[in-house]
């Protein structure tokens, strides 16, 4: 079966930055020479990495134009992970809201539990081609770290993961798995000790280790060619989703929803529909405690962000008037980031993608509903997309469909979710375990 699927995939997957290069789309989302998407992107890198980026660009250009590489990638993802991931018709939720048919793209069923696997395995194949022996990565919640550690184990690379000290403490389960997979996890003690600081730290490693080391950027951010490259690997989501909805529903969806941290899962699914002008694309950011509180991570859905350049690229950042980055907040660690993909900033500016924000509270309610109605546990990140989809579903007719990209599974978030639900039995359980381990 797998191979049949692979063939279906094969004939359909343009080896050349699929979504970004669709003709109907014109050139507006195509990168110019300097790695820009419209006014956004670029490569603001220290001189010491110039040569490394030159080589990386070259290697990426090569694989992008090599259909065999894309095929190798699709094969790997269909035997090591579970691609194509299914598109699930959420019949109960659809009925519940009484509007459009809700379909869920199941990236949670990937190996390691999130869309992160797509990017990481793709970069792994690239690293193999480049002949490097070690990978490094930043991680926030730990999903990208676990995915990278997994890839490194599979490919036999040495692996170091940078993770904010705060996050190391909060996300111990993921740290445990990374270590068990053979990776070294380095707690980052600078800055806010979270994702952005881990990115800085990974760059600090890379500027001395680049000869044998590749930095596996976890999302569609950072200096060129990372945004384009990560988007390219993630485009597999949208390619599949478009075919699936046509097959299962018989026509295109009205709207496609995805949560936006850095933007990789969103770009992944959006690329499948960019050329379909009638399909409304909605990115959902972290509304945290509410936009008005300032404690959020809504770059494009709020008016709190402004154009800036940091971490190697130009985009909309949450920063103060001096250009110092702000602390962000979200119940979902993976959305808790100052910047956003330059590709999304471009699509936002061009009004091709619409943005909304979901608050922590709305997220917990949507999570609860989704578990109870469908037996599906989306990651807290993914649940943001569900919130907005639920708000809008009633606007549609039963013969219309929407797709929600479920970027990951929530059972990894048990500590956070059980805490957020303020579950007394969970607390008692943890207290008991803690007591067992005391002394």
């Amino acid at each position, binding site marked *: 079966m797998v191979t049949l699927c692979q063939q279906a995939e094969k004939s359909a997957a343009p080896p050349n930055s699929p979504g970004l290069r669709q003709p109907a789309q014109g050139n507006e989302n195509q990168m110019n020479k300097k790695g820009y998407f419209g006014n956004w992107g670029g490569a603001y890198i220290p*001189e010491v990495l110039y040569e490394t980026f030159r080589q990386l660009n070259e290697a990426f250009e090569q694989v992008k134009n090599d259909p065999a590489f894309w095929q190798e990638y699709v094969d790997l993802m269909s035997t090591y992970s579970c691609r194509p991931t299914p598109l699930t018709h959420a019949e109960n939720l659809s009925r519940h809201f009484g509007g459009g048919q809700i379909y869920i793209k199941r990236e949670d069923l990937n190996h390691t539990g999130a869309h992160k696997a797509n990017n990481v395995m793709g970069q792994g194949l690239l690293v193999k081609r480049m002949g490097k022996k070690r990978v490094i990565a930043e991680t926030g919640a730990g999903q990208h770290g676990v995915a990278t550690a997994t890839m490194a184990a599979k490919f036999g690379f040495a692996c170091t993961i940078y993770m904010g000290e705060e996050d190391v403490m909060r996300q111990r389960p993921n740290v445990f798995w990374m270590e068990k997979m053979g990776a070294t996890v380095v707690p980052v003690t600078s800055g806010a000790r979270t994702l952005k600081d881990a990115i*800085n730290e990974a760059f600090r490693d890379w500027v001395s280790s680049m000869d044998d080391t590749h930095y596996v950027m976890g999302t569609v951010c950072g200096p060129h060619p990372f945004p384009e490259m990560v988007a390219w690997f993630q485009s597999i989501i949208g390619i599949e989703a478009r075919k699936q909805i046509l097959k299962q529903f018989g026509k295109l969806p009205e709207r496609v929803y995805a949560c936006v941290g850095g933007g990789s899962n969103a770009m992944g699914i959006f690329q499948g529909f960019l050329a379909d002008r009638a399909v409304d694309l909605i990115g959902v950011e972290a509304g945290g405690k509410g936009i008005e509180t300032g404690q959020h991570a809504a770059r494009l859905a709020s008016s709190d962000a402004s154009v*800036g*350049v*940091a971490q190697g690229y130009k985009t909309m950042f949450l*920063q103060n008037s*001096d250009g*110092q980055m702000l602390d962000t907040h979200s119940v979902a660690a993976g959305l808790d980031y100052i910047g956003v993909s330059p590709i999304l900033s471009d699509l936002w500016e061009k009004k091709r993608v619409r943005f909304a924000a979901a608050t922590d509270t709305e997220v917990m309610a949507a999570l609860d509903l989704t578990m109870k109605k469908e037996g599906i546990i989306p990651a807290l990140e993914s649940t943001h997309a569900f919130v907005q989809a639920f708000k809008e579903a009633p606007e549609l007719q039963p013969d219309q469909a929407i797709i929600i990209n479920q970027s990951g599974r929530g059972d990894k978030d048990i500590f956070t979710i059980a805490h957020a639900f303020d579950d007394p039995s969970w607390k008692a359980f943890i207290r008991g375990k803690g007591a067992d381990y005391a002394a």
Partner: protein
Amino acid sequence: MQLEQQLRAARAQKDILLMTHLVLGYPSFEVNREVIRQMVENGVDIIELQIPFSEPMADGPVIMMANQEAINAGATVKQCFEFAAEMAATYDIPFLFMTYYNILFKYGEEEFFKKSKEIGIKGFIVPDLPPEEGDKYLALARQYELAPIQIFAPTSREERMRFLAANGAGFIYCVARKGVTGKKSSFNEEFATYMARCRAATDLPLAVGFGIADRSDVETLTGKADIAVIGTATIKLVEEKGPAAVGPFIASLR
């Protein structure tokens, strides 16, 4: 006088020039003031004033923490300008701004150049702004006659060095090794080859930085480079022994 001329004049008097570095607002502008006094009085030839940035990607742990602390202590870009104006007015040596591109970008690049020129700053070091991204920056540098100091790294190829030099002015900042600021560099044969490559690529004065910490480092550089850059070493010194230790340290270097 433009930066390059000023440095050549100084260099004519000394075997090697000393450039020092500090992070504005860390631990406070008061301490900055005292440290600079000690530096100038003990013969420092040029000073890099780092305007703190929250994401100092190219800096090592010591300078990174200094950036963070300065921001936490409330240092603003406006204060940095005021303080730099005071220093440039007080001392006769060249002062440079070192910072990351976002600080210029958010301030408004033109405004940043204009203001810097006004207060007597001589040039900028912006480690995350390669010439490819700096069209406007480089044009403004020419317009305002401020030196857009370029950086060479051991990984830079010859062609690349020429390109950088062509876009630079004042001097070239040669990063002594791969990696971030703050770790020791070993000035071995490989380093000598690297310096020869730098020299061959440009006529601009060469500064060498990253990990220069004592007299023997400075001696090793003498003859190979025009300027020795002391960065992390003084910051650590101030942290450990206070600003009063800076003068004797600087005096001991050369």
